[in-house]
């Protein structure tokens, strides 16, 4: 009988656990997480595939471990006790052998790292599958300080790291993450959403709530850039006496971005206000052209292109499809690259680093050197230092460093205005910092930059004499650039992810920009062109996922609760029965057992 009862009980428990596993479980919280880029590039020569970013998408329900729980493995262990152990552990990354313990510490769990902790160890050790169940990188609220309420500084607290150094470090982290193939899922999450769950204050690192994380992510579909959209706004002047087009000036900017997580690509690339500046310029010149007395002698064509991070694919495609008559009338192409300021010091009217004017020399097209020098002299009047940088174009090198080179190859005179001296500065490629750069564009300086560019253009358009003492500024009072326009454009762009391969023909922000130009009175159109490339980079969709968090307690704790409940029962029994009776009953039980034995 007893055996039967036991087996029945066991069967019941078995069935119930099966049922439990089938039941849907309500999680503690569901949060959005953003997957690290996954891209593939096939080499045209060797046919080899280069995979970048994370190839894995789902994280099964697993326990979490934060950086601090395993950080002790990263401290240098002295081999000889006589030796000095005064080496700074913060600056040196221990050799890979010692880091193996650190990596083993995370086995079977989801590793939760604050962003800047990724510099303390070699992240590529996690690239193999099986090292951990997944990595969750927590992005601090303010990337420029590396310390927030919840995070510990990853720097010497006595020295305040300059923003440039922080930007450098950020660039290092981003290139580390994107240049390798990771077979573990890597996701980003904002600090604000997990600050109440994980405490990164290493003093209280013992007080980690036990959590299980689960991410259901789709591996995604392969995406290549199928089409690029360009937005043109045409501001014409009257035709000349022969009925032909008067000279044209093209002003271009790029609206797309790059980010190591495509779902976090809504930032203003390198704090780029170029799109906003271009829109504001179009508004000012439309105002001038509407008045017959101030109508310029040049046609103006404002263009917004995509694909800038894919070797300026959009611009290339656009220029090959422009009306020949317009192309022949082009006298200058002004490319607006990054126009941004990182310093929030509003009292300073000087731009940090100044501006750089890039143009190409050599070959059949020669830009009149007065053009760059004119820009330089006007910029001095506004208190901005502009450096002129020339570079020869290597015809065999397909890499386009700045946008003007594309126009140069089409035998058009072009210059690029940029905040960057060099084309390969890390932040220029697009960074997580971009997400925060739109939050506080320096008001006065953007007005200054816009005024500068407008005055420069107006000198060409209205053919003013260039005497510094007689410099007549047009763009003041009614024609003063309005920073609100730039800020509103920025605010609008910040809402949309603008990573080229994932953009469709009828993106909302493009339609918004089209409406903006139309509201100024410009003839606007959006054109989408199909792309088919020989060398292709494939990107994978499935860039966003849902993270579910369960709060769990350790088994030991639950066993303790079970023991406490038994104690509670015993105490209750004792209390209700009375002291003497309970003792009597216990004695009886013991006696009965002895008798049975």
């Amino acid at each position, binding site marked *: 009988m007893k055996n039967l009862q036991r087996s029945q009980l066991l069967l019941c428990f078995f069935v*119930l*656990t099966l049922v*439990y596993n089938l*039941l849907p*479980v*309500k*999680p*503690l919280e569901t949060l959005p997480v953003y997957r690290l880029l996954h891209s593939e590039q096939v080499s045209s020569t060797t046919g080899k595939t280069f995979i970048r970013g994370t190839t894995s998408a789902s994280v099964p*329900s697993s326990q979490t471990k934060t950086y601090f729980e395993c950080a002790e493995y990263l401290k240098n262990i002295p081999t000889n006790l006589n030796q000095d152990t005064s080496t700074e552990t913060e600056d040196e990354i221990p050799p890979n052998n010692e880091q193996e313990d650190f990596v083993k510490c995370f086995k079977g769990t989801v590793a939760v790292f604050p962003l800047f902790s990724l510099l303390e160890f070699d992240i590529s050790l996690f690239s193999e599958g099986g090292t951990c169940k997944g990595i969750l990188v927590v992005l601090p609220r303010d990337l420029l300080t590396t310390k927030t309420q919840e995070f510990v500084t990853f720097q010497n607290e006595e020295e305040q790291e300059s923003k440039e150094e922080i930007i450098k470090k950020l660039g290092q982290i981003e290139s580390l993450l994107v240049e390798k193939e990771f077979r573990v899922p890597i996701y980003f999450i904002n600090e604000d959403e997990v600050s109440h769950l994980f405490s990164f204050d290493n003093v209280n690192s013992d007080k980690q709530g036990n959590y*299980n994380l689960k991410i259901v992510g789709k591996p995604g579909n392969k995406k290549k850039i199928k089409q690029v959209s360009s937005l043109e706004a045409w501001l014409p002047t009257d035709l000349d006496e022969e009925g032909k087009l008067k000279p044209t000036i093209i002003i271009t900017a790029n609206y797309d971005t790059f980010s190591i997580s495509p779902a976090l690509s809504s930032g203003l690339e390198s704090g780029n206000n170029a799109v906003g500046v271009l829109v504001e310029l179009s508004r000012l010149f439309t105002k001038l052209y509407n008045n017959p007395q101030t109508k310029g002698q040049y046609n103006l064509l404002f263009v917004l292109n995509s694909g800038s991070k894919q070797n300026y694919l959009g611009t290339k495609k656009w220029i090959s499809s422009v009306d020949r008559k317009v192309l022949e009338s082009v006298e200058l192409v002004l490319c607006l690259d990054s126009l941004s300021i990182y310093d929030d010091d509003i009292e300073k009217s000087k731009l940090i680093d100044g501006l750089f004017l890039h143009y190409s020399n050599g070959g059949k097209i020669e830009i009149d050197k007065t053009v760059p020098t004119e820009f330089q002299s006007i910029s001095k009047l506004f208190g901005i230092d502009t450096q002129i940088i020339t570079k020869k174009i290597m015809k065999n090198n397909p890499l386009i460093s700045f946008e003007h080179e594309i126009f140069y190859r089409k035998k058009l005179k072009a210059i690029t205005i940029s905040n960057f001296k060099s084309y390969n500065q890390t932040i220029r490629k697009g960074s997580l910092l971009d997400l925060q750069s739109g939050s506080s564009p320096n008001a006065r300086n953007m007005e200054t930059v816009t005024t500068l560019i407008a005055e420069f253009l107006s000198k060409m358009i209205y053919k003013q004499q260039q005497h510094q003492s007689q410099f007549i500024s047009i763009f003041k009072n009614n024609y003063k650039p309005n920073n609100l326009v730039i800020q509103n454009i920025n605010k609008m762009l910040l809402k949309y992810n603008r990573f080229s391969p994932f953009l469709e023909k009828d993106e909302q922000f493009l339609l918004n920009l089209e409406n903006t130009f139309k509201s100024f009175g410009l003839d606007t159109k959006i054109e989408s062109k199909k792309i088919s490339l020989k060398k292709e980079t494939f990107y994978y969709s499935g860039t966003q996922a849902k993270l579910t968090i*369960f*709060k*769990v*307690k350790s*088994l030991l*704790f*639950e*066993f303790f*609760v*079970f023991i*406490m*409940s*038994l104690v*509670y*029962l015993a105490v*209750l*029994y004792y209390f*209700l*029965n009375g002291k003497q009776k309970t003792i009597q009953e216990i004695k009886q039980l013991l006696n009965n057992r002895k008798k049975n034995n």
Partner: protein
Amino acid sequence: MSFFYLFAVLAVLLVVPFIYFRISTKGQSKKKTSILYGVVAYLLTTLLKMILMATFLPDSDQEEADFTAQFEPVSAIITIVVSSLDALGCFLALRACSGHSEIRIFGVSFAWSSAESILSFFFVSWIGCLKPEFNWVYMQNALGSNINLLKQIAFTHIIWVLWKGKFQNPDKRNIFIWLSAFFITPELFKLSEVLLSKFFIFGWVLLVLKFAVAYGLFITSKKIYQSFEQLNNNKKKN
């Protein structure tokens, strides 16, 4: 999370009333009938209450929450009136079963509160305790059901005294008993929970307060019952 927590919760939920019943009714017979009548009375009373509530209670948007309910006067009054059926159910169960008064009282109250805790908390706890997420709510519910047992015993005592006393001792004490019966009506108990939750008192603190109130009611009801029994015995002697 694991079976340990489940066993802990079920032990507190089921074993405690059993211990109490066994100790209170030791060495006495005819326990099973009182338990049976208690269970049947509870089931039928609950069914009738549900039908009446569904018919008369206005629709409310509030979801079922553990301790953060909002107080609505109209629905509270209706639930008070409907839950007075509890008293009727108890009374019928006490009347139906036979045996010594204490057996009947303890049997019916044990059966009533056990049935209530099984139907309300047993299956929910079984599923909830095995979830990956750990939640104290299930243990709190189990301990709450123990407190409900105390309250139910007090309630049953009062019903007994009202039943036996009404026809025999029409004096000032009856008014006091009537009042105490009204105050320990279940809906008022819930009202107190709602009021306390307004002051953001939930979880363990609420449990402690509930226990204090239930224990106070239990002591009061026992004293009333004992004084009634004394009176009865004196009368019999006389």
